């Protein structure tokens, strides 16, 4: 199980600049679909890479699905050398995304967020309209079903998450 409360607190109280996207963002907007991980787009400044590395280090991040024992080093240099990381942590599965289809990088996504008060921290979450754009751009079969639900949510009116 992914401990959303702890993961979000660890990231945000550690000063990491991230935007909630993917299935967890859909949950924030009212989706009833089950999602297993936390997807965030992170800002790729040197300062933020250091903050992310420090915040998550105590929770043993490791590459999800990789065989144990690989020489995976969790630090800012590793983050700088890659872009999108699918990780396991002691707090659950976490996808750290430097860029997403239909949303781009942190700076491009930042104008399209709503701020939520969640578990005692202020969380930036992609707004419903941009979430729909990213799901459409991803275009995987599972995204088409998710897209149908998100469009219904949009068409049913203003979600409280959008008004916060």
């Amino acid at each position: 199980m992914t401990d959303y409360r702890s993961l979000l607190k660890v990231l945000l109280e550690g000063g990491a600049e991230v935007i909630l996207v993917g299935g967890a963002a859909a949950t924030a907007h009212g989706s009833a679909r089950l999602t297993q991980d936390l997807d965030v787009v992170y800002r790729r400044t040197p300062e933020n890479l250091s903050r992310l590395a420090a915040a998550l280090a105590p929770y043993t991040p490791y590459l999800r699905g990789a065989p144990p024992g690989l020489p995976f080093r969790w630090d800012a240099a590793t983050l700088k050398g890659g872009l999108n990381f699918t990780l396991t942590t002691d707090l659950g599965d976490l996808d750290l995304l430097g860029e997403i289809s239909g949303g781009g990088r942190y700076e491009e996504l930042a104008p399209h967020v709503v701020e939520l008060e969640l578990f005692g921290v202020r969380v930036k979450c992609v707004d419903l309209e941009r979430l729909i754009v990213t799901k459409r751009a991803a275009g995987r079969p599972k995204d088409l079903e998710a897209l149908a639900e998100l469009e219904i949510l949009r068409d049913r009116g203003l979600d409280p998450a959008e008004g916060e």
Partner: protein
Amino acid sequence: MTEREVAPPPDPVVEAYKKGIDVTLLDRNLRLTVEERFLQLMELQRFAEELRRAGRGARKRD
């Protein structure tokens, strides 16, 4: 012009999926706070994991 006005035409696959979506679940979720939605998701994850565990146990007994 807003993004919504320039949105692409409806995708027939997406429109077909819409017919199978239980909107009562969505309406119920929209009455919850965002935090309550995440607590509900974690509860659902726990239940799914319990079902998987029970399934593994049943297969072992067969």
